[in-house]
């Protein structure tokens, strides 16, 4: 059912005349800052990954914030802050480490002390690069070890449609996340996907389905380094973040 929604969305995009758009492989030529992160720091849409990896030797530092209403951890109790460092370790491999802070979460409710943390590491491998007809395909795992509060194991494919070269492009992604690995929580479990419309080097609008809800966001790019974004989770709860990217 969910996958059907995703496919129907692609069909809608196609029916809008995009079938006349050029089909190519621009993501390989994009700079690191043009591949913005999801809220947990890996390259992606809002809550979902895409089949993109940050360039080899590129470093991204940032923070993503979730309102407590749609936070993955301590939902309804505490906002979630994810501080991350993402790095293009070698060509086609993206790794990320994350430190999360939950200011209103409590380990022991008998004391007034609040605030807990979680740490995790994510990795993604680009298995197939995009060509004229074939989508890019990547596999990855979030929150690789430990308690796995934010775990996902997934395969994802992405395809870009260039509407107007160097001005408007649309990238559509879809994937599947099984629950093969034992974890405290699975962020993604089932079919997921989304799309992003990028306008020049200034801004993008994204929508994704994260196996639980639909989300949308606007991202702004500045100084060829900085990405700032605001998101509506389930089209109601707020989230956002900012990241800085540098290519070594």
């Amino acid at each position, binding site marked *: 059912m969910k996958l059907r929604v995703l496919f129907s969305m692609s069909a809608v995009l196609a029916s809008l005349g995009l079938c006349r758009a050029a089909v190519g492989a621009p993501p390989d030529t994009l700079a690191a800052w043009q591949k913005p992160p999801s809220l947990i720091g890996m390259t992606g849409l809002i809550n979902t990954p895409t089949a993109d990896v940050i360039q080899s*030797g590129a*470093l991204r530092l940032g923070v993503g914030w979730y309102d407590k209403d749609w936070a993955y951890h301590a939902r309804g109790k505490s906002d979630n802050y994810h501080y991350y*460092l993402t*790095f293009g*370790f*070698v060509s086609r491999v993206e*790794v990320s*480490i994350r*430190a999360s*802070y939950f200011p209103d979460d409590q*380990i*022991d409710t008998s004391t007034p*002390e609040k*605030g*807990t*943390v*979680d*740490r995790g*590491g994510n990795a993604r491998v680009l298995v197939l690069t995009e060509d004229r007809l074939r989508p890019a395909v990547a596999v990855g795992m979030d929150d690789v*070890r430990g308690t796995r509060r934010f775990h996902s194991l997934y395969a994802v494919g992405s395809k870009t449609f260039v509407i107007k070269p160097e001005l408007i492009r649309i990238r559509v992604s879809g994937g599947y996340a099984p629950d093969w690995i034992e974890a405290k929580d699975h962020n993604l479990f089932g079919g997921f996907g989304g799309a992003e419309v990028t306008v020049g080097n200034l801004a993008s609008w994204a929508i994704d389905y994260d196996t639980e809800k639909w989300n949308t966001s606007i991202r702004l790019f500045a100084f060829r380094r900085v990405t700032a974004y605001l998101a509506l989770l389930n089209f109601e709860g707020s989230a956002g973040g900012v990241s800085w990217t540098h290519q*070594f």
Partner: protein
Amino acid sequence: MHLADLWVRLGARFVLPGLLLLVGTARAQTPGERVTTAMVHHGFENVAVASDSAITTVWFENRIYRYDMTALGVAATLCAAALDSSGGVLELVPENRGVALIAISAPVAAWRDFMDGRSDAKSFRSGLQIDAHRRRSGAPLGVDQDRANRPYGRTDLALRPLFGFQLGAGRSPFLYTVQVAPEVTLSPFPGGLLTLQAAIRIHDDLDPCGTEDPCRPVIFPGRNTLSWGGWLPAGVLSTVSAGIFPGDRYGIATELGRLVWKNQLEVWGGGDVSGKLLFLEDSIEYSSLDRWAAFIAATHRFRGLDLETTLTLGRFEEEEFALKLEVARRIHEFEIGFFVATNPNSDLQFTPYEDTEDKSAAGVNLRFALPVAKYMRPRAVRPTTVPDFPFTYKSTVDPVAVQITPYDNLDRLRKRLYPTFVWNEIEDLRTANRYVTEAGGER
């Protein structure tokens, strides 16, 4: 005596010696001497030049550029400008504290064309020879020769930032320490390095008595060590460091290593003997030299990809056997490495092992270059800055694969100038063009 004879005699006594002096001065400007003059004038130390009909070898030490690839590029530009255009081969041997590190040679014309941008990295590499043990002629790297502009005894003053943090230790979500450390360093003799450092506490969540009433003084000794580095027989590079180390330890630590297999694999090892030394507000706590660690390691560095993988195994300070794997990238002056260390609960433990579960730790090592890229020329006393900011984060406070951090280790002695690194980052030689012109003048 005729007046004419007198003029002739006067001429013989005064004019001829003057002419000979002039001739002598002109003769002094051999290419080798021009290279020495240019290198010393630019601020390089420990400069020596040896020339034969085919190869000009230049030994030098850089303490003016933060990045040693920049210094290599500057040295190449200065030397190529000072040598004749026919030139032969120019071989550069950078040193650290008088210890020759590597020999890099190419035809003078190739250096010149590459530095000027007339040839690309691929064609430059085709004539390039890099070796960590021998010069192009087959002679050893080092040379016993008079040096110009010797660095020994010159003192550097710097202010080093120190930062550490730990997530999720106990109930505290975020613990951190911030210190600044005034530091004095000098090389008293070839291979030697004396470091005197005081740490000034700005913020310390890791104080043993807590932040409310800390028991550490505001100022306490930081890293205070006397170190030596140099070559041993069979191409083994070694370092020894003794004194007070970070982490409240004192003792002695050593490392030995050799590059093998096309200079792409480094087999190295080390160990330390240490005791606890904790400076508190009103006392000093210490223990005898009762802890020791010993390890062997292998590091592989690719030629063509700046990725290095290190596998370490050994007996560490908690008397435990542990394995550590680190995969790192060194890109220009930036370094990032992810590591995992495990202390398996096995029969390999050196003492009865009470824990029923394996212990493991994962983390990241980062090294960022700090802003100043070119320093003041070395002098008797020089204010300067530290070149980079190293930072390590480990996922647990559990003591897994813990050993002394000697700092003056093999890696620091080599100044990153591994043959593979020079090969991979050869384009970075051109960063020298920010500082010198093609003719060898300063920008």
